[in-house]
């Protein structure tokens, strides 16, 4: 079932898929910025430091599924 859903996602227009990835990057930046503001060591946000491994870490989590559920 899950792989069927993923194959359906793959069929979406390229522009739409890129925009979805962009939304995730923006979300990640916001979360990181908020976390940074809450931190005692407020070092600010550097977009170039976005880590693919961090972004990918929860890729298969229920929360991740929820993010994509409106597609």
């Amino acid at each position, binding site marked *: 079932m899950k*792989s069927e859903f*993923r*194959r359906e*996602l*793959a069929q979406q227009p*390229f*522009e739409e*898929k*890129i*925009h*979805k*990835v*962009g*939304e*995730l*990057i*923006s979300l*990640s*930046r916001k979360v990181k910025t908020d976390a940074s503001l809450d931190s005692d060591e407020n070092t600010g946000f550097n*977009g*170039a430091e*976005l*880590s*693919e491994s961090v*972004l*990918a870490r929860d*890729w298969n989590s229920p929360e991740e599924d929820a993010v994509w559920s409106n597609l």
Partner: protein
Amino acid sequence: MADERSAIPLADVLGAANELVSAGLIKDYALGGALAAIYYTEPVTTYDADIFFVVSDKTLSAGIPAIYSHLKSEGWRVEREHFIVKDFPVQFLAASGLTEEAVRAAKQIEYEGVPAKVFRPEYIIAISASVGRHKDRARIEQLLEQATIDKPLLDDILRRYNLNLPKK
């Protein structure tokens, strides 16, 4: 508030690459890496764009200073190995061997009205097999599951470059 949709300014990136071709600074180019894979698969997270280019100038510097000057004049900046456009990192990579063949064989597309080229899935798989990191193995698996693959072409590329797909 910034438009979330601008987080990946891919049309700007491809437009700039087209300008580099028009200016004669590069011969040809194609989108590779994760963004190219997304053309064929579900969306996956990535933090940069990889543009593979065929050099016009075969000298040691491969025309990189000219590319740098051109992009800088367009408002791009440089941070370590990346060019930055609208806060999004882009890597310009000189193609050779397998990647040069991938550029020449790339699929012609249009992205938000901008003509561009994107690596074919068979080449993305072969390049991923040659790199072999965890994320490359995941990319191969995704492409094999979700993209339409020309199996004879893939086998031919793998054979000619002495590559093997990772075992499951």
